[in-house]
């Protein structure tokens, strides 16, 4: 039996054809369950079922957009046709490939749990994990979010691609309350599956805040920085990756313009966008424009190999879409975005934090003010500690770290761990799988 969203997508395509247009439609139905943690207990829970249609029409080579909810398909198409009147002419070839990559994105086990409404059990395990370590450490905040999504892209070339996915995000903030201001640390996990050890997540948050009780005795001058995957992913996602978007390259907003096939970083470093990796957080068999691509090496062996393109930008840049046309939701138009980035380097065989001296930066603030056009960033190390011979020698308050890509990549070494990270701030979504790293070419300013 066809789902309501599938019927709506077909309805939109019929209206587009009735208007003698080409076009595509992005339909999504997203069910979200969320539990909030506050002061050691489950504060509340919420659910929402979101359904909508993003419509694009191409009329006389002019492109128009509209969105609507099911039941208002005709209105939605009319809005898109009206907006197409003002568009410049553009030659866009909508995809014709009907077979999608079989990528594992849907966990039946999670679906079953989702319907049983048993999220509270997992949240309680996180809380218990935090409380298990020491009496004065409490879980003061956090959340557990489980999402089940059906995503459909259909177009007037008769493609109708449909994919189901699941996703779970959980985070917990462990706190030590003190007269002199409380100490806090956050632990985050993301996965497409229910493969998270919820209790252990709580334990790790508690251990992290426990390790920050004492301030560091001193601050070395220009120390190397050991940076946790979550923090490094934010820097890469905001200050580096947009510089590889085709539009930024074409319009001169990228320092990598003209550097295709040029070595920009050491040979050991590769950055790949692979949305076809099973269980990748950003994985999916097709992009939000219905393009079925292949993995895209951005930097391979230190050499710039590809820039990222959606359909519109590929037409403007006279190339092909790399399958990176994504929508933030059904209300927005498709644009270039990285999907499931993998950062690979020559990994150290041991825990990189055990290498000598430096500062360990766990959490950063202010990454949104980075400049992808120049690669520059200056952020506050919000949770950081001093390392001496691999030992945590106390927390560091109020340090700022600044640097510039790609110089920072030139002095980078990787640990032997790996973490799937996910952040969404505003219109930026960062999905990167990467290890802990040591950065040499970075400055640290401390009051």
């Amino acid at each position, binding site marked *: 039996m066809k789902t309501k969203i599938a019927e709506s997508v077909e309805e939109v395509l019929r209206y587009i054809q009735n208007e003698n247009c080409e076009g595509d439609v992005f339909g999504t139905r997203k069910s979200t369950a969320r539990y909030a943690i506050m002061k050691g207990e489950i504060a509340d829970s*919420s659910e929402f079922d979101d359904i909508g249609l993003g419509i694009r029409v191409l009329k006389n080579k002019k492109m128009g957009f509209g969105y609507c909810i099911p039941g208002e398909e005709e209105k939605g198409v009319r809005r898109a046709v009206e907006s197409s009147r003002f568009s410049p002419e553009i030659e866009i070839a909508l995809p014709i490939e009907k077979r999608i990559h079989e990528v594992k994105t849907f966990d039946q086990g999670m679906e079953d749990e989702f319907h049983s409404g048993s999220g509270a059990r997992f949240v309680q395990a996180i809380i218990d994990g935090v409380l298990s370590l020491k009496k004065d450490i409490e879980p003061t905040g956090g959340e557990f979010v489980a999402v089940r999504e059906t995503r459909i892209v259909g177009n007037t070339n008769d493609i109708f691609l449909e994919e189901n996915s699941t996703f779970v995000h959980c985070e917990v903030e462990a706190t030590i309350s003190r007269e002199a201001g409380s100490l*806090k640390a956050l632990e985050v996990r993301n996965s497409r599956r229910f493969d998270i050890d919820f209790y252990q997540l709580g334990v790790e948050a508690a251990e992290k805040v426990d390790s920050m009780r004492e301030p560091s005795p001193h601050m070395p001058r220009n120390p190397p920085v050991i940076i946790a995957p979550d923090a490094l992913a934010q820097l890469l996602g905001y200050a580096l990756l947009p510089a590889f978007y085709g539009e930024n390259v074409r319009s001169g907003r990228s320092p990598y313009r003209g550097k295709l096939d040029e070595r920009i970083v050491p040979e050991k470093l590769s950055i790949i966008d692979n949305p076809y990796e099973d269980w990748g957080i950003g994985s999916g068999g097709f992009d939000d424009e219905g393009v079925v691509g292949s993995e895209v090496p951005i930097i391979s062996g230190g050499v710039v190999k590809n820039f990222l393109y959606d359909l519109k930008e590929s037409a403007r840049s006279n190339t092909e879409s790399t399958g990176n046309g994504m929508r933030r939701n059904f209300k927005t138009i498709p644009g270039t975005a990285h999907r499931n980035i993998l950062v690979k380097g020559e990994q150290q065989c041991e825990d990189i934090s055990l290498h000598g001296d430096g500062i360990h930066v766990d959490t950063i603030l202010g990454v949104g003010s980075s400049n992808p056009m120049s690669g520059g960033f*200056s952020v506050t190390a919000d949770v950081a500690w001093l390392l001496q011979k691999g030992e945590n020698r106390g927390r560091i308050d109020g340090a700022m770290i600044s640097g510039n890509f790609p110089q920072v990549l030139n002095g980078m070494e990787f640990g032997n761990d790996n973490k799937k990270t996910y952040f969404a701030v505003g219109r930026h979504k960062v999905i990167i799988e990467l290890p802990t790293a040591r950065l040499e070419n970075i400055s640290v300013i401390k009051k």
Partner: protein
Amino acid sequence: MQIEEVINKLGEEGAHYCDIRKEKLQETFITKKDGVLETVIQGEERGAMVRVLWGNGWGYVATSDFETIVQTAERALSMAKSNSKFKKRKTGLSKTEVCKEQKKIPMKQDISDIDLEEKILFLKEIEKSLDEPFVRSIELGYRDSITRKEIATTEGSHICMEIPKVFVYIAIIGRGNSIQRVLETSGSTGGYEVTRDLYRKTGIALEKLKSLLKAKPSPSGVMPIVIDPHLTGLFVHEAFGHAVEGDIVTSGGSCLEGKLGQKIASEKVTIRDDPTLQGYGSLPFDDEGVKARNRTLVKKGVLVDYIVDRENGWKLGLESNGGARAEDFRVKPLVRMSNTVMEPGDMTFEELVEDVKKGVYAQSIMGGQVNPAKGTFQFSAQIAHLIENGEITYPLQNVSFSGSTLNSLKNVIGVGKDFGLSPSLCRKPQTVTVSGGGPHILISETTVGGRT
């Protein structure tokens, strides 16, 4: 089924409290980049959220299909019942006036009367006035929306409101020794008349970019800083405002918890959050149906109030001051700011800088982030100027500054007599429209860190 019938049914089933928030949103969004129209999108959506309190447990369920409102309400009730079993702490709601009112924020020029073509033409005119040889790229954006909300509660409140908003922006890019970008915005509740302010801002944007292209790298270290009204707005919103949001206070995540009645800032500092002021964060009622009102938060350096909704007001022993806002029908209301401003003082700009031996004058927002629990912040300015011996000397690029909120509030040693208000989006993690503003201020000590 009518919204009130569903409410009554939930009441009959024994819910201790419930409300329904029904919303309809219409919007138009246009962007133009380097002479080419990139986005012209119009859309409409609607949906509703049912919120139920049973014992100490809350259940929130949202739907984009109003035909399923009865099932949605039943699901919210069963969720609240289930959550009440886990909840050990008591939950309650502060008392509030029962309102039955309809309010529309007026538009001098109704955005529904302006056709798409005219809105596109407006961007074309703005673009023309930015055509200078040193400008390499021009990005423009226009967004308007009308949100219609209906809120009904088991206590008998029934509110209908209509909130129109317009937001426009200019982003220009130039290339000197490095690539630099300047952003100017205008935005407010109201009608198409809001766009007029952008004509004035084209000249400001061009001047800023010209300066940035010959700017030098920022110095680093601890030094005094003068910030402009945009950054004062960012400072009072991000560094201070989040720490007085009731939910952050009651969760133990605020450096201002337990500090009501205490001196937390210099005597020169008075801060308020006012949804009745015309700005991008204005609203007649909050999303619990409580009438919007001005909230003085700091008076001459003393913390006198928090921003609260009904639940967090109850926890803190305060009446709700209308602080509940939700991004849309999909999500529950959180405690949020509206238009947050520092009151002007009596100093001229010259008086603010005259005693600064070496410092920075930072202007316009590039970005920022805070940790309200630790009371730390990090902000970046689009452009800055060095201050040497009381004189503004050369322009600086890539200036960031960070510090402790409480120390910085105490270190406000000069407050200007001017005033400016800027629109922005606040993410907590839901996104709502807000304004922040105030005068130029002088902070005696902050950590400045430039990008390499």
